[in-house]
């Protein structure tokens, strides 16, 4: 015997719910209404109609008003609407039919349908909550929490997929490896919250700079990635330039304007290439870009890989050298030109390599400057020299000897530089006033904002600054007024040309008189001949340094020089 029609229509309703269908409720209302040949079906709550078919919104609203009374008949424009009401959780279902009233079977069917909709909705909510939690977990596992960008895992996944596809036409996969210049300094100087703001801003800039089809990700810390497709090298470098310019725009974080820049390495992929290999290429190119200064891009070339390997090797060797005490301080004397008296020494790094012997700075300093190793070298040299100088100053009549020691850009940007130098002064018992820290003029001018804080910190210690290699122009001189600079060192390239090139003499003369006007002492570097000495003295330079006066020497030889000098001074004064 055929079972009741209503049972089957009820089971249709139960079957109709699908977790994939965003229009579940509307479809359910359609099915319920069609099942009993009704014209009107609606679900509503106290706030209004959720879904209604068969009536205009105005007539539908009237049904809501009648919800408490639940009348069996409602008069509408088209005639008498027989109604049947049922509860779905906090909502109500009403079905209306012109013509026949609902019989008992239909009324019980509609109640059962309402109940099944309620159960289905509950189940769907539970399912979608679970799905949502799963999706969220997946999102968390594949996205960076701070910026919301895909993380390394997803970037590698996306890049692998992109590299597996055959490129369309002339298009080629390109990876841009973006590194925020000196991010660590911003983080240390302004706090992690400011660093986070900066990263969020960079993420936004990157998203705005790329096409929708491009992938932007954050690999770690201040390293970002853009995966794109370009037809030409020019299009890729244009994109890199656009990103550099977008990131360069200053942002205000906690009332401070942060100016920053990014270096970008560009690498082009080939079908079938491994994603991590392509990323590595872009990383190597980024390194190259950084070596060109801040805010540059570079395109990966195979030769860079060898350089990178060499650099990594050397970096490792240097770390080893520092740990094993192979880095030594040498000392080059500085004399007052007017009376040829010894005023102090410049400390210079040497590497006493276990196989290669003594290496000059040119053999390792440029490489060391590309990494944090330089900070260790600078501080190691300063530490040795400060100790030596404190001892030398105790020699009779030499209490005023000064020490000049070099700070590279990275060291100057080292977050705890002030404390570390204070520590060195403390342990060596060297008077801060006799220490001159040499920095280059570009370091000073390049990033005045962040340098100012560091330099003010050093001034508070009582140490002074010497500007090394000065000579590219005296516009920078104006900056000098803002800092506790005591000494200007004229670059040896100027001194070289003094005898043969009258223009050099003019420029050097102008720089020296301006320095004098600012109350600075001037050291002429690279003085090798008597002619040069005479000219720099005539131009007003206070001090001279160079082979004419003495080469850099180790501690023992320097001590001998000092003792000889002291004894000749004593002899001279006695005589």
């Amino acid at each position, binding site marked *: 015997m*055929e*079972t009741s*029609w209503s049972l*089957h*229509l*009820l*089971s*249709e*309703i*139960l*079957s*109709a719910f699908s977790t994939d269908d965003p229009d579940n409720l509307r479809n359910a209302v*359609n*099915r319920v*209404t*069609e*099942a*009993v*040949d*009704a*014209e*009107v*079906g609606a679900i509503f709550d106290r706030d209004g109609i959720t879904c209604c*078919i*068969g*009536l*205009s919104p105005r007539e539908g609203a009237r049904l809501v008003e009648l919800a408490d009374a639940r009348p069996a008949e409602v008069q509408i*424009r*088209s005639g008498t609407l027989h109604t049947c009401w049922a509860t779905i959780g906090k909502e109500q279902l009403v079905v209306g*039919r*012109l*013509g026949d009233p609902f019989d008992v079977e*239909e009324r019980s069917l509609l109640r059962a349908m309402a109940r099944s909709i309620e159960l289905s909705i509950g189940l769907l909510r539970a399912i979608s909550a679970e799905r949502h939690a799963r999706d969220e977990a997946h999102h968390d596992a594949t996205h960076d929490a701070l910026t919301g960008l895909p993380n390394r895992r997803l970037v590698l996944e996306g890049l692998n997929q992109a590299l597996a596809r055959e490129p369309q036409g002339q298009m080629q996969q390109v990876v841009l490896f973006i590194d925020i210049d000196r991010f660590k300094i911003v983080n240390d100087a302004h706090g992690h919250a400011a660093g986070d703001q900066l990263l969020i801003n960079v993420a936004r800039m990157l998203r705005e700079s790329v096409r929708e089809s491009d992938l932007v990700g954050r690999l770690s810390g201040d390293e970002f990635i853009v995966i794109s497709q370009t037809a030409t090298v020019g299009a890729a470098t244009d994109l890199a330039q656009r990103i550099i310019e977008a990131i360069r725009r200053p942002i205000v974080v906690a009332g401070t304007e942060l100016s920053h820049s990014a270096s970008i390495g560009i690498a082009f992929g080939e079908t079938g290439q491994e994603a991590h290999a392509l990323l590595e290429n872009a990383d190597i190119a980024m390194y190259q870009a950084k070596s060109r200064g801040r805010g540059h891009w570079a395109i990966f070339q195979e030769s860079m890989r060898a350089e990178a390997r060499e650099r990594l090797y050397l970096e490792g060797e240097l770390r080893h050298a520092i740990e094993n005490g192979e880095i030594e301080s040498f000392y080059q004397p500085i004399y007052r030109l007017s009376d040829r008296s010894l005023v102090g020494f410049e400390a210079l790094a040497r590497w006493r390599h276990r196989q290669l012997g003594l290496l000059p700075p040119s053999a390792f300093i440029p490489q060391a400057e590309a990494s944090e190793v330089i900070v260790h070298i600078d501080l190691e040299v300063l530490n040795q020299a400060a100790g030596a100088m404190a001892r030398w100053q105790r020699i009779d009549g030499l209490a005023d000897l000064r020490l000049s020691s070099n700070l590279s850009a990275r060291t100057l940007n080292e977050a705890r530089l002030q404390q570390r130098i204070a520590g060195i002064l403390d342990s060596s018992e060297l008077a801060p006033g006799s220490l001159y820290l040499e920095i280059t003029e570009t370091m000073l001018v390049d990033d005045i904002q962040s340098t100012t804080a560091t330099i003010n910190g050093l001034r508070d210690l009582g140490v002074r600054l010497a500007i090394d290699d000065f000579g590219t122009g005296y516009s920078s001189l104006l900056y000098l007024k803002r800092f506790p600079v005591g000494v200007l060192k004229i670059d040896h390239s100027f001194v070289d040309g003094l005898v043969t090139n009258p223009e050099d003499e003019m420029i050097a003369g102008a720089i020296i008189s301006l320095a004098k006007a600012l109350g600075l002492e001037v050291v002429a570097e690279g003085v090798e001949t008597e002619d040069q000495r005479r000219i720099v003295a005539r131009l007003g330079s206070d001090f001279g340094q160079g082979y004419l006066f003495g080469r850099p020497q180790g501690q023992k030889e320097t001590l001998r020089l000092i003792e000889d000098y002291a004894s000749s001074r004593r002899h001279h004064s006695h005589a």
Partner: protein
Amino acid sequence: MSESMGSSTTDSPRRWVRVGSSTLPDSQAALAEALQGIAGPTQPKLVVLLASPHYDLAAVAAGLRDGLPDGTAVIGCTTSGEIADAGSLRQSLVLWALGGEGISVATGMGQGDGQGLRQAATQAAYCLERLPQREHTVLLLLADGLCGDQMDVVRGAYDVASLDVPLVGGCAGDDLAMKRTSQILGDRVLTQAVVAAAISSEAPLGIGVSHGWKTASPPMLVTGSKGNVLASLDDRPALDVYLEFFDPPEPVRHDAAAFAAFAACHPIGVRRRDKIEMRHVSGADFLNRQLLTVAEVPQGGLAFLTEGDVDSVLEAAEESFKLAIGGLEGAPPVGLLLFDCVSRRSIFDASNLHEETDLIAATSGGVPMAGFYTYGEIARTKGAGGFHNQTLVTLAIS
């Protein structure tokens, strides 16, 4: 134009219908011939174009734009056979024109996609809001029958039309190729779309629907079904159940074309409150042993395998016509528009194909009539549903 394809002239000065048709193979020539047939006493308000898919539809639509006065709305679609005064046609072009002061028309369209036509039907139905409404209104819908669940066309249109406006129409065909159908609005040729004409009249409009199929099998539970795929009946593969029951000739068991021809006269019936609703079986998935239907056979429902014959189909045609005329409240009809399921046509052979249309022509007293063989019919007069299969839907204008 031959005498048998000539225009009909049952006339009412305030409301009139003309039908023109042509079997000429050339698009322009066929259009020119059909246009002659619809020359009426006044400018037509609406022309419905029903054309075999072999015609250059863009050219026909452009020709209609140029050949009809400004202000005449045009909708249309491709077919799997046409109906005109002369009876059942193949490879022809038919125009059904409606005019007169007592008629108002507004047209609309909605573009769907492979996923379905609900939203498209809703958009098309908004033409109702541009229509100066008279006492009697109907929304005529022509939809792409190869696109999603066709129940959604009715649901989408009903969202706008609501219970006050009956829906009538059919799904475009493509001569049973089941690949691509076209819909026409003005001079635009669309696919995966719904086109609509809202017709309002000062006189009653009648709609009739009937199928004539009879249940052949015991009832079966629909145990697996989603969208247009009927996977299992009573927990067994639906295709196996179907073939076992009907035991058709060998080619039907593995040849797609042979199966489609057989299935056309053996639809699935779905138990509803007080009737059995037909679902046309459009094909089979021989690999997965599933049946493909043009509209959902809902999971959880009760289904029957059904069959029909010439007599039952003819009875249903008469019934559909009578129901439509009954809706005219005693007013005489001035024209008919028919939506006849393509599967009904396969019940007949060449010798008796004319019987269904002859029967209607004779019963109506020869009022102008046109129509087409569809992939699904729409007739909503009561209840919220109104998508049908295997039926003849008749729209009568008085």
